[in-house]
């Protein structure tokens, strides 16, 4: 899974090129508190250690909405605002693509339990928070952004598919788009069927052109080719984290950003497909 190499792949030639620039990154995971503090942990194997998440209060939301916001909303807002701050971008002017393999998983359990009781009921807040695009809705309220926002799901490939759709939107509509990926664990009994090992969220601020704030250029190709590239030396604990949480499949890409050297990230997409992402530091 963590296939990172420096080869420029011959089979990329002749394919339609999808190029976007990364201007800002947000990151919130176990032992990963923000992008800047996490860079050294990503690039130095052995430094990262599993630790509880410290998700900040979503102070950008009005008090009523803040009380209603669940963990998926808090995570999404934290990484989304961090990526915009790092990019010096106004969040009210960027479009968003949210992607999650499940959404607010603990809430699904609570709602189904409440509906299975002899006196079924559901509160208005629990209902509207249960939609897959709830973080997108709260994001709009917090940022006052009227730009388009799309919420996606592709099971284990949710990050890769989200990245592809966000990058295509940037390239075709020629506008900045923030990709916000998040996942949280289920409660029992669904956790037995769908184990997600930790909460995790990351955001990438993607832009169509190189600017003073560009950190990296990404050339993305979707391929069914079986060519493989050389393996990386990411921390084994982080490799495990990236296998245990669909949104954390972003970690090899974040590792490449932190290293700030030209390399190719090979990311599994849907079965039989992968994204080959050439990363060039700016």
């Amino acid at each position, binding site marked *: 899974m963590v296939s990172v190499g420096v080869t420029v792949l011959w089979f990329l030639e002749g394919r339609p090129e999808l190029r976007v620039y990364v201007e800002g990154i947000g990151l919130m995971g176990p032992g990963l508190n923000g992008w800047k503090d996490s860079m050294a942990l990503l690039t130095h194997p052995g430094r990262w250690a599993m630790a509880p998440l410290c998700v900040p209060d979503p102070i950008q939301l009005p008090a009523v909405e803040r009380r209603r916001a669940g963990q998926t909303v808090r995570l999404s807002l934290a990484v989304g605002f961090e990526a915009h701050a790092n990019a010096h971008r106004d969040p009210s002017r960027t479009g968003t693509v949210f992607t999650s393999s*499940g959404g607010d998983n603990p809430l699904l359990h609570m*709602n189904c339990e409440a509906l299975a009781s002899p006196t079924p009921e559901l509160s208005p807040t629990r209902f509207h928070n249960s939609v897959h695009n709830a973080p997108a809705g709260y994001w*709009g309220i917090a940022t006052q*952004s*009227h730009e388009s926002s799309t919420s996606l799901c592709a099971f284990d490939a949710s990050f890769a598919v989200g990245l592809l759709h966000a990058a295509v939107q940037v390239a075709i509509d020629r506008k900045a788009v923030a990709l916000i990926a998040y996942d949280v664990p289920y409660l029992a009994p669904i956790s037995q069927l*769908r184990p997600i090992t930790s909460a995790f969220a990351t955001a990438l601020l993607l832009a169509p052109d190189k600017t003073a704030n560009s950190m990296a250029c990404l050339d993305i190709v979707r391929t069914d080719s079986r060519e493989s590239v050389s393996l990386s030396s990411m921390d084994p604990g982080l490799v495990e984290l990236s296998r245990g949480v669909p949104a954390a499949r972003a970690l090899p890409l974040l590792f490449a950003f932190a290293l700030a050297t030209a390399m190719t990230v090979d990311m599994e997409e849907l079965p039989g497909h992968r994204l080959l992402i050439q990363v060039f530091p700016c």
Partner: protein
Amino acid sequence: MQPLILTHVSLVNSLGEGVDATLTALRERRSGLLPCSFRLSEMETWVGQVSGVESVRFPPNLADYDCRNNRLALLGIEQDGFFSAVKSAIARHGRNRIGLFLGTSTSGLDATELAYRHRDPESGALPLSYSYRKTQNTFSLAAFVKEVLDLDGPTAVVSSACASTAKVFAEASRMISAGLCDAAVVGGADSLCMTTLYGFNSLGLLSREPCRPFDAERDGISIGEGAGFALLEKDTSISDPKAVKLFGVGESSDAYHMSTPHPEGMGAYLAMQRALESAGLKASDMDYLHLHGTASKANDASEDKAVTALFGSKTPCSSTKGWTGHGLGVSGITNAIVAMLCIQHHFLPGSLQTRSVDPLLKSGYLIENGTACVDYVMSNSFGFGGSNCSLVFGRAT
């Protein structure tokens, strides 16, 4: 945007199976709404439930995917020769050059709700027959349809509440423009479940009678369900005089509230304005507006303000939710296909159950059906989280 041709569509909802069932019911002004008896619910409301879902023959090799939502999807694929149309498209483009972008808000939630009623009393475990991945997970719909249609292009599920199956047209348009696929199957399915019935009830948004869009006495929505699909292709040599194209898409966010639309219709206005810009057309080019028109007090008022601000009071418009109910995640593709029918059949649907239009609403709302030359239609879909999407369809030739 580069216009895309709708080479084939299919539809299933409470009006019946196939596009013609919907067209006939629209013309005959026959509603698909009935008093709710779904899962023995005692909810005092009316629903647009699809009959015969239980008797759909589900492919044995895909049995793990068996849930109400995927049954509706299968029923949709089986209508209107859609399966064969996709097979022909595969022959033209190749299975890995056809994208699959589907929308749903419920996914197989009904299966999870049923499983929670049958947990092991000791361990709390869910029944062994329950497959989380293939029913509940939001991607289940696309994973299932991908198998049924044998497609292998870029695939995603959009779950942006009631705008989901409108926004899939935007995703498909961009993916085709970027060269990631040459054609796309778009649409999706949404299914009745306890969560939406009890959820909308708790919000005070369920009507106790068949919903009455834009009526002065409207008191809420009727929930519907169904499936719909469209095959989108770049402009080919197709010379069917009835062919309809997607000319524009517009997306926006309300940035106002999770479950209440912007009171001035700001997000709706932006979505419609952007759809016109994307199509390179003017407001005066639209012959009919197929409204979201859920029959909730706030939604209709908000949409009316947006429509009036952009189109004035003369452009004919209406909501067909009185026929189908509000199909939630499937309302985008349902509205889109009805928009296509309006163009093909010079038909303007009115509004069912609407006795007199709310005098506070100023748009050119139709109650009675009509006929007119319809070249361009705008189709609206707005959802929770302030997610809005408007589509512009028009005559291809």
